[in-house]
């Protein structure tokens, strides 16, 4: 259906040649924009109806006081299903610290949250198939788990800003959400508006980059340089991803175009993770609660982890 729409707009309405770079780029753009927005709206609406989205306040209550492995497992799982705006990461960090949750567990949560979420997972299945979606989620969970453990080994407590330890958190007492279907519908529509309103530009940019790659980058060049034989492509992809930032959903069409042209799967996954989870703006926000050494360490641990993931998948492929 979406392919037919892409064909219609690119080849029939605009009269572009299917074999030309511009033709295939436009076809890709129309097809993916339509597909991703339909999936986005559907998934967010259904999630809103189910009220499956947990608030960070509840996550904190869930995780506090558990033994380390349980806390970490919960933090990663909840990070994966809880979408939160990166501007919330400071209060979230402080709230976790105040609850006595180990810093390593908090880092696991901070890694998992931007990288994996149920919306991106469903769109991954829709665009790249369930196998790749499962690989991405599995790799993301592993990185979040081990990344948090690695951070803990360096005792990052010493780099937490002093004022963080002073803050005492009050009890949140927000009324339980309404249970009627009409109220759930209103809430779900609100969620769709809020989330689509926040990430639509990442999706458009992602699809645009994917479309350019799909239309204009010659497959022969990709085979020669990015097919995975050269071990330096993975760290290069990770480094490229650090200054680039996109929502996890926005990077999916880029990955689609890359895989379609024959870029190695490990290289693609490494770039996806680096773009979604490692971002300079988020680092700068976290600077309010932890000092530079911890931030550098955080970036370093993640960069190493993504590189290992990339190499691993390229070897297996």
């Amino acid at each position, binding site marked *: 259906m979406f392919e037919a729409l892409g064909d219609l707009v690119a080849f029939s309405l605009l009269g572009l040649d299917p074999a030309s770079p511009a033709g295939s780029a436009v076809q890709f753009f129309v097809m993916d924009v339509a597909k991703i927005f339909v999936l986005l709206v559907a998934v967010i609406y259904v999630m809103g109806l189910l009220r499956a989205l947990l*608030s960070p*306040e509840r996550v904190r209550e869930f995780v506090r006081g558990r033994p380390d492995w349980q806390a970490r497992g919960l933090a990663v799982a909840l990070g994966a299903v809880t979408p*939160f*705006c990166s*501007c919330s990461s400071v209060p979230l960090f402080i*709230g976790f610290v105040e609850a006595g949750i180990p810093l390593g567990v908090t880092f696991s949560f901070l890694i998992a949250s931007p990288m994996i979420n149920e919306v991106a997972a469903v769109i991954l299945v829709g665009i790249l198939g369930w196998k790749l979606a499962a690989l991405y989620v599995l790799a993301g969970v592993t990185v979040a788990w081990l990344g948090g453990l690695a951070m803990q080994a360096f005792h990052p407590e010493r780099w937490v800003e002093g004022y963080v330890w002073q*803050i005492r958190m*009050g009890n*949140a007492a927000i009324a339980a959400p309404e249970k009627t279907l009409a109220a759930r519908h*209103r809430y779900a529509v609100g969620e769709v508006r809020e989330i689509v309103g926040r990430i639509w530009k990442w999706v458009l940019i992602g699809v645009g980059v994917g479309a350019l790659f799909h239309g204009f980058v010659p497959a022969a060049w990709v085979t020669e340089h990015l097919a995975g034989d050269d071990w330096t492509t993975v760290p290069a992809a990770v480094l490229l991803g650090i200054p680039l930032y996109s929502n996890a959903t926005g990077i999916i069409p880029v990955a689609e175009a890359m895989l379609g042209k024959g870029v190695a799967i490990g290289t693609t996954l490494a770039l996806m993770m680096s773009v979604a989870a490692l971002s300079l703006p988020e680092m700068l926000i976290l600077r309010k609660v932890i000092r530079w050494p911890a931030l550098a360490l955080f970036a370093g641990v993640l960069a190493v982890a993504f590189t290992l993931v990339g190499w691993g998948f390229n070897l297996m492929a």
Partner: protein
Amino acid sequence: MKQIKVLGSGCRNCEITAKVIEQAAKEAGIEIELIKVTDMAEILGHGVMSTPGVVVDGELVHAGGIPGPEQVRAWVRTGS
């Protein structure tokens, strides 16, 4: 006068929330005192981790996103 606080570190959603409340008060013809709270200690003191949060006359009524228009109208009208 009713006092409404918007809790948030100054992100876009917090700005929008403050604007929505201001607008609703103007439309209802009710004067309110709108305060933007950016101090982390105070935000967390209200038990809020997901911003923006909204506090009406000292009571937390909302957290974790831009509130709906009906909700906002209710805050402006109820009480004093």
